């Protein structure tokens, strides 16, 4: 871990000002990802601006019927919030499928968006990595890339975004409210994270000094028909190989609205709006889901050790949509109800 100055921000303005005027400054919320990366020397901010205790932890109703999630609310407080549980159960399930109770208690909503890839090469200074040190090369291409991207990768980076929460958010499509040197602005969730392209060092589209203030969820929460399905190497406390967030609105058996996003597959939470359009107007049947799933993976590209993810993603999409349509078993763990 490098040497840094610690500053406890007194307000959002102070935080933004301090971060803007110090080169190498970074915000710290819960710290669960940043401190990890600092210990690995992957990130070396010279000035830490603590925003954890800013009054940004409220979860409150919005006039348009939506729900505002404060950026400094913890993942746990968000997941267990009554309004989240009842109106956005997909988000509740996705958050609880991620990390561990301890981490969720410390990690903030803003921080969840900011968490960085788990790419093994990104984390290990002994190996070249374009995301960590632009221009050095991508070791994951042709390397051990079991946990890497099948969508939207570039020849410079095949890393994935590791969040579960963000997959549900991608489906629910909130706006991300940020405050920066030029004031506040809102970013559509789908525009927040980015694909690696030729700038894999950039995870998102935040401008220098910008601080996430809140996530504003729209009114529609898909609370009746949803599923968050997470497939991983052990039953808990592991990053997703594939995860699927699905939300459906049904009129009888006809799909009237649909949301579909995948995790563990791309540099950003991977919402597939074409697939959503394909679902709308169709009967909620396995045949429909299979057709849509085939469409979802039609653009997937394997990297060797992650080739299996293409087929796994296809199957997971079918299962998640099926679970969502059934509206009964919203199990993130397929064994949850199997052996009481």
């Amino acid at each position, binding site marked *: 871990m490098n040497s840094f100055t610690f500053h406890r921000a007194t307000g959002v303005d102070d935080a933004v000002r301090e971060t803007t005027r110090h080169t190498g400054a970074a915000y710290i919320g819960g710290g669960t990802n940043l401190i990890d990366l600092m210990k690995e020397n992957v990130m070396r901010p010279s000035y830490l601006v603590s925003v954890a205790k800013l009054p940004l932890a409220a979860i409150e109703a919005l006039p348009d019927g939506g729900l505002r999630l404060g950026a400094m609310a913890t993942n746990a407080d968000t997941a267990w919030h009554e309004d989240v549980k009842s109106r956005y159960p997909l988000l509740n399930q996705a958050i609880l499928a991620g990390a561990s109770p301890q981490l969720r208690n410390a990690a903030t909503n803003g921080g969840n968006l900011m968490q960085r890839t788990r790419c093994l090469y990104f984390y290990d200074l002994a190996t070249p990595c374009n995301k960590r040190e632009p221009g050095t090369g991508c*070791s994951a291409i042709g390397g*051990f890339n079991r946990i890497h991207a099948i969508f939207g990768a570039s020849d410079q980076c095949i890393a994935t975004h590791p969040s579960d929460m963000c997959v549900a958010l991608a489906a629910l499509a909130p706006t991300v409210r940020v405050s920066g040197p030029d004031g506040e602005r809102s970013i559509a969730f789908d525009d927040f994270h980015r694909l690696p392209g030729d700038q894999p060092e950039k995870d998102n589209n935040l401008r220098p000094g910008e601080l996430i203030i809140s996530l504003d969820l729209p009114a529609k929460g898909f609370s009746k028909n949803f599923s968050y399905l997470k*497939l991983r190497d*052990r039953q808990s406390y592991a990053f997703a190989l594939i995860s699927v967030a699905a939300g459906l609105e049904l009129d009888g058996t006809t799909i009237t609205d649909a949301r579909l996003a995948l995790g563990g597959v791309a540099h950003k939470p991977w919402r597939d709006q074409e697939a959503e359009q394909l679902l709308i107007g169709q009967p909620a049947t396995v045949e429909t889901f299979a057709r849509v799933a085939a469409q979802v993976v039609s653009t997937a590209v394997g990297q060797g050790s992650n080739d299996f993810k293409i087929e796994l993603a296809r199957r997971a999409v079918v299962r998640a949509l099926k679970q969502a349509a059934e509206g009964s078993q919203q199990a993130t763990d397929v064994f949850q109800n199997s052996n009481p």
Partner: protein
Amino acid sequence: MSTTNYIGQATSRVDGPAKVSGAATYSAEVHLPNLAYGYVVSSPIARGKITKIHADEVLALPGVIQVFSHENVPSVAWLDKKHQDQVAPGGSPFRALQSPEIQFSQQPVAMVMAESFELARYAASLLRIEYEQEAHETNLETQRAKGYEPGKGKTGYQPPPPPRGNPDKAWEQAAHRMEAEYVHGTQHHNPMELFSTTVDWHGEGKITAYDKTQGVFNVKNYLVGVFGLNKDDVRVVNHFVGGGFGSGLRPQYSVYLAVLAALELRRPVRLTLTRAQMFSFGHRPQPLQYVKLGTNPDGSLAALQHHVLHETSHFEEYTENIVTWSGMLYQCDNVKLGYQVAPLDVFTPLDMRAPGAASGSIALEIAMDEMAYEAGIDPLELRLRSYAERDQNQDKPFSSKKLRDCYHQGAAKFGWEKRTMAPGSMREGNMLVGWGVGGGVWDATQKKSAAKASITADGKLTVLSGSGENGAGTYTIMTQIAAETLGLPLEAVTYQLGDTDQPEAPLQGGSWTAASVGTAVQSVCQDLAGKILKLAQKQADSPLQDAKFEDVEFLNGQIRLRADHSQSVVIRDVLQSSGEAKIEADGSTTPNMPKQSQYSLHSHNVVFVEVKVDEDLGTVHVTRVVNAIAAGRILNQKTARSQVLGSVVWGIGMALMEETVIDHKFGRYMNHNFAEYHVPVNADIRDIDVIFVDEEDDIVNPLGVKGIGEVGMLGVTAAVANAIYHATGKRVRDLPITIDKLL
């Protein structure tokens, strides 16, 4: 008063309150003033040499004390022999910071010393080192041709026995046969406690090292040899080990570096490795295993061949017993076993829980399942048809073997008779259900051990033997043995371990501690009992006046005549009236070789596993396990059960998730952390039943114990793999069986 017959009871751990309250202190938790902190810098390359170390850049930082590297560390003992610990394989042990040569990725190349841990870590991150890289080779697949039969370098290694019968012809002519290659991932021990050493410096060449180790004497002898210290000036202490599983059998570079720093800096030092560095010193090797089996028309084994190749390092020749067990678990007259190693640019492998047997039993027991399906015989029945009544490897009878009882009791508990043979035939809703079986055999070993017992006039007994407590329950079972032998309440007994000032005990490994240290503890306590009896007999009008030692028993705080329980004395009264402040006994015990050498001494087990598999998604859950074990006498039902439960967790991990992945481009283990090296979590584990079958054995040792730390792991992994085959019809021979292999 409840009885003092403690052996075999489910006594709660005597060190339990210390462990659950945070009072138990581990090697990094000794508080010393003026501590200097070390932080190791690890090599990013697998082979080459260091050309320059820019130490002056970090030495300029206030609070940085020193940067140790090959450029400035003092020379140590020249002879390899001085560096070879008790369980070193043949070859030339790795010597940290003694040469610019890089022999494996993550090799320690420097150690930064600073006034705080954080500063040492920071300085280490800044240290620039230049390397000249050379081509490395870490892929065993490409080195198959380099395999050779190793020598007998390592303690405990038994080369496979010569072939018996005509294994090739018998296989060719067998009624049914199978052949297949099996492989499982490289594993790292990953005890929860990081390797750490705190060294107290008492003056020129005098130290106490608080080290994470499974053998304080092994470490002490190593330090004395390597640094040329006076053996009276070196003390090694370890009261609690936060898990070992074999990783602490050999002195690791952490203790070497910490002691080196303390001697050089002439002050106390603490060095703790990082979790990533826990992947830098020894692992369970990745064996390529080839098995051929054939059966006679009656389903008995006609032929068995098992050949293994695994890696070693370029500097040591690591060996483990992988194939030997295959020659003795089943009756078979035509057997050929082969064993080879090939050197790679990695650190030397290191014994890891049930070394050899854990790997060998995977191949053999999956092969047996394949054989059962080839022959159309129930997998358990197949095993019964080749039940070995005698150890054919050694051509000796077993001292005891209740494996048949394991089969029957385990199968009954599991409900095996309800199994239908065809793969995919046991569905439950959306889930495919599979039942599998596997098992194994492990050595029952007794090693020379010493102990000392002393009792004071107030009736408090203290027993010392420099063994270890890594979770196996050493404190508890030794307390039970001592208390029962002298008929004292547990509360009156203190057992102390983990200190080279105590009588010497063997390394804590091989499942031999209960048998070895237990026998020594029992023996010195019996000697002490004899002395107490003599004191009792000196008393006027002693009711035990003419009794011989065999005529009395020590029970419930009394000595009484076996023939007439009314004739008794209270032990504490005897001690108080004797005028002696303290009575002592010490000595050592060794195995009764003339008796033992006539027999094959082994423990056995069988494991039944149920899995549920999601057919579409390939997710597997082990929902039920029954592990039946024949391991002689069980000293403590509670701690023994826990050891077996843990073994099952290990077996499940090995089957489904554990694997250290090496990127051959870098010759480097890449998933060197707990996020990506997956060990089972609580949610992975469901119902586990443990059965200890009754097995009396007065040959293995006076206590009749065989040890249970390793045998419980055998067969678990294969049983999971076999259950997955039964559920899905997919035979996976490349473990761990991750989701991608079942799509």
